[in-house]
């Protein structure tokens, strides 16, 4: 007992205690639930078995059921579209703004900081604001586009089945753009100035400097930003209940929202867990890219 106390006050016991508490907490509230999710996807869970751990084994029935759903391929397609277009939009616009604010003019860093307000806003509020901006009859975006002569009649962003997912994508790009910009700015700032000066003396144009210095030097940053973008987009949930609730007719539903609907609207927890499992495949692919990209930092 005394040895244990000494170890905690002066030795390794202190470290083990600190890391152990956190790891126990994470294991209990993230690790075990994750495994439980895997288990549930192979079980029959209904209102009668919800409270017991021993449930009828379902094998792959839940998976067969999900694959057989009429909306399955629609949701998968939407997810792919949502993830790819959100990431592309956030990255391209974020990179452009990062380079813009990298220029040394008065107020650059302060104004750049203001952009980050989008990142700290609750997703539900962002969804609400964009829902109003994108409204068909009275939305301000339609009014601006009409005023600029880009469209002739209102676009029904949220209720047109072909466009509903795009409404959420637009809001999501706005939400994640600033964070992409910030991370890319950090990468840009880490490139030594004299490289550009040397290239300029060698006669490289601005575009050549971007292609031969900026891009290669930013490779690991870009990898990390894309991985974080993928993770962030797969984690994005709040915009859906705020804007479209997956409608009309599932045309704007994505995996994460479908899984939640299955669990908490239809109370079919086993199948909700099953959809989550499909999503985890993508999440872990992103995670591997992310962990690899942070290795430099992790190794210290």
């Amino acid at each position, binding site marked *: 007992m005394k040895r244990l106390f*000494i170890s905690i*006050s*002066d*030795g390794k016991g202190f470290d083990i205690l600190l890391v152990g508490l956190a790891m126990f907490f994470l294991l209990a509230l993230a690790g075990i639930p994750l495994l439980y999710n895997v288990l549930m996807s192979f079980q029959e869970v209904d209102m009668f078995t919800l409270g017991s751990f021993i449930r009828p084994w379902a094998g792959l029935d839940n998976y067969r059921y999900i694959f057989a759903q009429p909306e399955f391929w629609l949701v998968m397609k939407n997810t792919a579209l949502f993830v790819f277009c959100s990431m592309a939009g956030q990255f391209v616009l974020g990179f452009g703004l990062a380079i813009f604010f990298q220029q040394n003019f008065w107020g650059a860093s302060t104004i750049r900081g203001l952009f980050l307000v989008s990142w700290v806003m609750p997703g539900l509020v962002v969804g609400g604001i964009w829902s109003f901006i994108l409204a068909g009859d009275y939305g301000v975006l339609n009014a601006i586009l009409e005023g600029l002569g880009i469209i002739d009649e209102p676009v029904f962003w949220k209720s047109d089945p072909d466009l509903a997912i795009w409404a959420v994508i637009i809001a999501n790009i706005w939400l994640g753009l600033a964070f992409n910009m910030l991370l890319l700015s950090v990468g840009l700032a880490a490139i030594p100035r004299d490289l550009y000066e040397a290239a300029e003396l060698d006669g490289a144009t601005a575009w050549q400097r971007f292609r031969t210095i900026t891009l290669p030097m930013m490779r690991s940053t870009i990898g990390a930003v894309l991985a974080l973008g993928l993770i962030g987009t797969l984690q994005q949930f709040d915009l859906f209940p705020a804007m479209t609730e997956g409608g009309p007719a599932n045309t704007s539903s994505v995996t994460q929202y479908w899984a939640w609907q299955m669990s908490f609207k239809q109370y079919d927890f086993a199948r909700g867990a099953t959809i989550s499992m499909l999503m985890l495949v993508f999440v872990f692919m992103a995670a591997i890219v992310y962990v690899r990209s942070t290795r430099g930092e992790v190794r210290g």
Partner: protein
Amino acid sequence: MQIEILNLDKHYGAYHALRDVTVQIPKGQFVALVGPSGCGKSTLLRSIAGLETITSGTLKIEGEIVNDLPPRKRDVAMVFQSYALYPHMSVAENMTYSLRIQGVSKADALKRAREVAEVTGLTDLLDRRPRDLSGGQRQRVAMGRAIVREPKAFLFDEPLSNLDAALRVHMRTEVRALHDRLGATSVYVTHDQIEAMTMADHVVVMRQGVIEQQGAPMELYDRPANKFVAGFIGSPAMNFVDGKIGEDGHSVTLALPNTPVIPLSRKAEAGRNVTVGMRPEHLSLDANDGQIEVAIRSVESTGSMAYYTTRTDPELMLVEQGRNRFRTGDTARLRIAPENVQLFDRKTDIAI
């Protein structure tokens, strides 16, 4: 004995950081641990402080075995290379920190800090933060912080290496003077053999976790135990030339042009292959008197000293007092003072 280090071993996994290290440090002595980087000198110092655990062996401070005691129960003070001043505390708070932990009242601790500040010239800086101090001032605060505690021993981990050259030379004498005034026991780690030689009573030369030799500075200089110590101690470094003991055992033939033969003052095993060590100041150049003729490759003159290298294989380095008497490209005769020649076994590098 103030500090006794007996048969100390330290492993990091498979890596053997310290091997069978034994050093006895009497009260009041200034001991320098010196060696190239990675030799284990810092590990040894940190083991004394309790910042590293030892694998086996015994560590005693004032006769008490401290192997398993945490640093706070060893009552030693340490001056770090980076000074490790607490950036969120003023100089006075830095200096009184350990006293306050021991439960000394604030007023008493501050009084003590003022006395020490007087000695170390910090009186005007007591309210400043470390970031507002110059490198030399920070170094003084680190020293002051150690002195305030009146510890059983002072441990220095390359404390002067972050200072500029002039200040470093000045601080050498100052640190030593403080040590003498306090009657302290000090263990001082450095990679700079000049620091070790000029400051310490007792020098411990280490390499790859092993003590190569320990003793008084001049003893190490005059009678190095092996080729490594001979080459490490002294600046410029000792010249090494292959040689072979003559048939009579009283002379050695050097592998230099014209194979000069040097008489030996003591008998050695006839025909043995040896490495001959000659310090630069024990070689001299002359217009016509000397064993062999050499061409001069380079000359560096500082005004008070002249440094020559010769166009021989291996190249020899010589030092002479005064202005340079020869110039690059001159030829001269090289004189080797036989009484100062050191012999090392060619295979084991151990002194003969």
